[in-house]
C-alpha cells in the first residue's frame, strides 16, 4: 500500500512542456532521499489545464502543483514529501484567485466543469486495465451482453446522446439503422482522426482512458450486431496509438475482446488503422475508403454506411467522445443520470479544447447548456493581457465565428445552428482585438484548400479562387466587388459540394463577413488592417505623449527600426520596420499604435 499517489500529467500537452524531464527529476530526488518506494508515480492522462503544465497532482493530500520545472523537484521533495508542508510557490496562482489555490475545487478553471468523459483522465494509470475496472469499467458491457440489441439502441436514444463529432445525430437512432441492416457481417468504426487544427479532445480520451473507448465500441457492437471494429486513429497521435494497442492487448488477455466474451455468444475483434495525414479522412466515407486501403475520397450517399459501409458491409461510425460516453449511459441507472445533465435537446456534457487568446487554455468538460460567455470567462478566465474579446471560432475549419453579442447563447446543437454557427467537434479558438478576421478566414480556408481531396469541382477549384481573393484583400489589392463574389461563390460551393468538408469550408468566410463586414470593407476600401496583422495594411507608430522612453521596444526590435533616447519618446523608422510585432508585445505603456499606412505624414514629431 502506497502512502501517496503522485499523478504526473503524461499527455502530449504537458509532455511538450517538459513533464518527462520533470518526472525524471522527481524520481531522482525521491531516490536521493531514499523514499521512492513509499510513493506511486504514474504518468497519467490530461487533467485539462494545459496552460499551467507541467502538472502534478498528489493524492490523498489533494494538492495541485503546476508550471513545474525539473529544478523545482528538489524543493518539492524536501518540503512536501519529507517536510510534510505544501510548497506555496508551486500552487496555482492567477488574477482569478485571491490566494494560491490548493486543489481543483479552488481553481476557477474547474469550477463549472463536470467530468463524465474525462472522469478517469489524470486519475488512473491509462496503461492499467485493473484501474479502469475498479472505476466501474466494463460493467456497461456486461449489462449490454444481457440485453437485446434493439433495447440497447433505444436506451441510448432515450438518454439523448448525440454525435460528438460535430453533426449531432442521435446515436441510438444511428445504431438502430445498422442493427436493422441485413447480413451477418457488420462493423463498428471509431473516427479518431481528429483533424481540426487545435482540437485535442479525442486525443486526451485516447491517451488518458483508452478502455472507455474499447468498452463503448463493444457495447455498440452488441447493439448493432457487429463482430469487428476499426479504430481509425491519425498517425500524428503516436502516444494514443501506443495506449490503444496496450489496452487492446490487455482486454484480449482478460477475455473482454475476442471470442465468446465473458461466456456470452458475442465475439468482437478490434483493429487499429492509422491515418496518413489527410484531413479529409475524417469525413466518414473517405475514412471508410482509407480503411479499405484506397485513396481517401468521399463517396456519394446514399447508400449510407449503415447499409453499405466498410468493405461493403453495414457499418456504424462514431466519434471517440460519443463512444466514451456509452459506458456511462449503459451502466445500471446510467441513462437516467446522463439525461439529468444538459438541455432538452442536448443531453450530457461536451469536451472543449480552449485555445487562443484566453487566459486558461486547455481541455474542459462542461454540461450542455452552459453559455459561451461562461466558458470563456469563468472557465477560460477571460482574455489574456487584459485585451478585449473579439470573437470565438467554434468548429474549426467547418465552423463559424461567434461575436460578442452572441456570447449569451447556450452551448447546444440547436441554439448554435440557429445562430449560423456550429458546435463542431469542440475546438474553441478565442480571439482578441489583435486578431484580424480576414486573416482568420484566410487561415482556415488555406487549410481546407490544401486538404481538399480534389474530387469535386466546387471544393477543389472554388476554395482556391476564394483563397486568391482573400490573399488579395490581405495584401491591399481587394476590389469592391470582392465581397459579393466571395459571398456568391461561398454559397455556390456550399450548395453543390460533394462532402462535408466542401459544404462547410466556406463557413469561416461567410460568418466573418456576416459579423465583421466592416473589417473586410476597411481592408478593401481603406487599405487598413486595424488588428495589425496584414502587414502591407498598417504601420506601427509610437504615441509620443504616452511613451516614457523605457527603451523596451527598441531593445526588442530585431532590425533596429526604433530610435530614441532613454526617457525620451521613441520613434519608429518606417523604412526599416518589418512589422514583426516584437515591440508591441514588449510595450507596457500601451503606446505603440496600429495606424494606417501613410498616416505618418500626418503626425509631426
Amino acid at each position, binding site marked *: *500500500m*502506497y502512502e501517496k*499517489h503522485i499523478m504526473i500529467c503524461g499527455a502530449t500537452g504537458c509532455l511538450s512542456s517538459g513533464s518527462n524531464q520533470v518526472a525524471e527529476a522527481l524520481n531522482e530526488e525521491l531516490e536521493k532521499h531514499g523514499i521512492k518506494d513509499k510513493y*506511486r508515480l504514474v504518468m497519467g492522462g490530461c487533467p485539462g489545464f494545459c496552460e499551467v503544465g507541467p502538472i502534478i497532482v498528489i*493524492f*490523498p493530500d489533494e494538492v495541485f502543483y503546476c508550471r513545474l520545472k525539473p529544478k523545482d523537484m528538489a524543493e518539492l521533495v524536501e518540503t512536501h514529501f519529507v517536510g510534510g508542508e505544501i510548497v506555496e510557490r508551486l500552487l496555482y496562482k492567477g488574477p482569478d484567485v485571491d490566494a494560491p489555490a490548493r486543489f481543483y475545487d479552488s481553481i476557477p478553471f474547474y469550477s463549472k466543469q463536470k467530468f463524465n468523459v474525462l472522469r478517469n483522465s489524470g*486519475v*488512473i*494509470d491509462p496503461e*492499467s*486495465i*485493473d*484501474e479502469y*475496472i*475498479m*472505476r*466501474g*469499467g*466494463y*460493467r456497461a*458491457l*456486461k449489462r449490454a451482453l444481457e440485453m437485446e440489441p434493439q433495447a440497447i439502441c433505444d436506451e441510448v436514444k432515450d438518454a439523448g446522446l448525440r454525435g460528438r463529432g460535430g453533426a449531432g445525430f442521435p446515436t441510438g437512432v444511428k445504431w438502430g439503422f445498422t442493427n436493422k441492416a441485413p447480413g451477418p457481417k457488420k462493423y463498428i468504426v471509431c473516427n479518431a482522426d481528429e483533424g481540426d487544427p487545435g482540437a485535442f479532445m479525442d486525443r486526451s480520451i485516447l491517451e488518458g482512458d483508452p478502455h472507455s473507448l474499447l468498452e463503448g465500441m463493444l457495447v455498440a457492437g452488441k447493439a448493432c450486431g457487429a463482430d469487428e471494429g476499426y479504430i481509425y486513429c491519425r498517425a500524428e497521435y503516436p502516444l494514443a496509438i501506443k495506449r490503444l494497442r496496450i489496452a487492446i492487448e490487455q482486454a*484480449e*488477455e*482478460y*477475455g*473482454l475482446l*475476442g471470442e*465468446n*466474451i*465473458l*461466456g*456470452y455468444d458475442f465475439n468482437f475483434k478490434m483493429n487499429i488503422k492509422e491515418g496518413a495525414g489527410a484531413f479529409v479522412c475524417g469525413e466518414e466515407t473517405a475514412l471508410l475508403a482509407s480503411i479499405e486501403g484506397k485513396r481517401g475520397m468521399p463517396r456519394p450517399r446514399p447508400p449510407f454506411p449503415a447499409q453499405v459501409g466498410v468493405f461493403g458491409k453495414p457499418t456504424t461510425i462514431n466519434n471517440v467522445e460519443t463512444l466514451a460516453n456509452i459506458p456511462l449511459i449503459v451502466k445500471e441507472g446510467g441513462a437516467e443520470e446522463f439525461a439529468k445533465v444538459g438541455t432538452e435537446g442536448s443531453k450530457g456534457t461536451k469536451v472543449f479544447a480552449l485555445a487562443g487568446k484566453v487566459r486558461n487554455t486547455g481541455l474542459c468538460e462542461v454540461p450542455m447548456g452552459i453559455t459561451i460567455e461562461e466558458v470563456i470567462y469563468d472557465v477560460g478566465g477571460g482574455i489574456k493581457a487584459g485585451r478585449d474579446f473579439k470573437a470565438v471560432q467554434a468548429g474549426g475549419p467547418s465552423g463559424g465565428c461567434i461575436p460578442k453579442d452572441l456570447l449569451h447563447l447556450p452551448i447546444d446543437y440547436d441554439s448554435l445552428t440557429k445562430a449560423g454557427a456550429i458546435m463542431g467537434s469542440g475546438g474553441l479558438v478565442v480571439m482578441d482585438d489583435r486578431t484580424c478576421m480576414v486573416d482568420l478566414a484566410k487561415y482556415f480556408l488555406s487549410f481546407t484548400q490544401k486538404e481538399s481531396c480534389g474530387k469535386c469541382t466546387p471544393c477543389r477549384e472554388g476554395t482556391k479562387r476564394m483563397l486568391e481573393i482573400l490573399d488579395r484583400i490581405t495584401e491591399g489589392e481587394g476590389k469592391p466587388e470582392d465581397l459579393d463574389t466571395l459571398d456568391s461563390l461561398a454559397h455556390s460551393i456550399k450548395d453543390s459540394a460533394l462532402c462535408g468538408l466542401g459544404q462547410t469550408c466556406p463557413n469561416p468566410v461567410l460568418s466573418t463577413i456576416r459579423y465583421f463586414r466592416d473589417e473586410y470593407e476597411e481592408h478593401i476600401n481603406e487599405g487598413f488592417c486595424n488588428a495589425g496583422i496584414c502587414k502591407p495594411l498598417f504601420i506601427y507608430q509610437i504615441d509620443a505623449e504616452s511613451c516614457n522612453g523605457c527603451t523596451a521596444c527598441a531593445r526588442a526590435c530585431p532590425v533596429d527600426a526604433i530610435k530614441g533616447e532613454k526617457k525620451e519618446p521613441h520613434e519608429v523608422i518606417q523604412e526599416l520596420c518589418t512589422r514583426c510585432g516584437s515591440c508591441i508585445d514588449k510595450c507596457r505603456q500601451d503606446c505603440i499604435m496600429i495606424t494606417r499606412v501613410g498616416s505618418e505624414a500626418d503626425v509631426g514629431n
Partner: protein
Amino acid sequence: MERFVDHCCEKCTHSKDTPCKDFVECCVEGPICHDDQSCADKRKKIIEKVALDEKFVIC
C-alpha cells in the same frame, strides 16, 4: 494474485478461452463463485495499491 485476471485460487476458472460470466463484478466485489475471505483480501490488496480511498472505486 497480482492482477485481477490472475486466479485467486484453484476454484477460479476465468480465462479468455474459458470465460466466466461474473468476471467483471468479481474483480472488485468477488470472489463470487465461492466464499473465501483470503481470496477477497487478495483483491483488496490489488485495489489498495492504487486506490487511496473508497471514493476511487466505483461499483
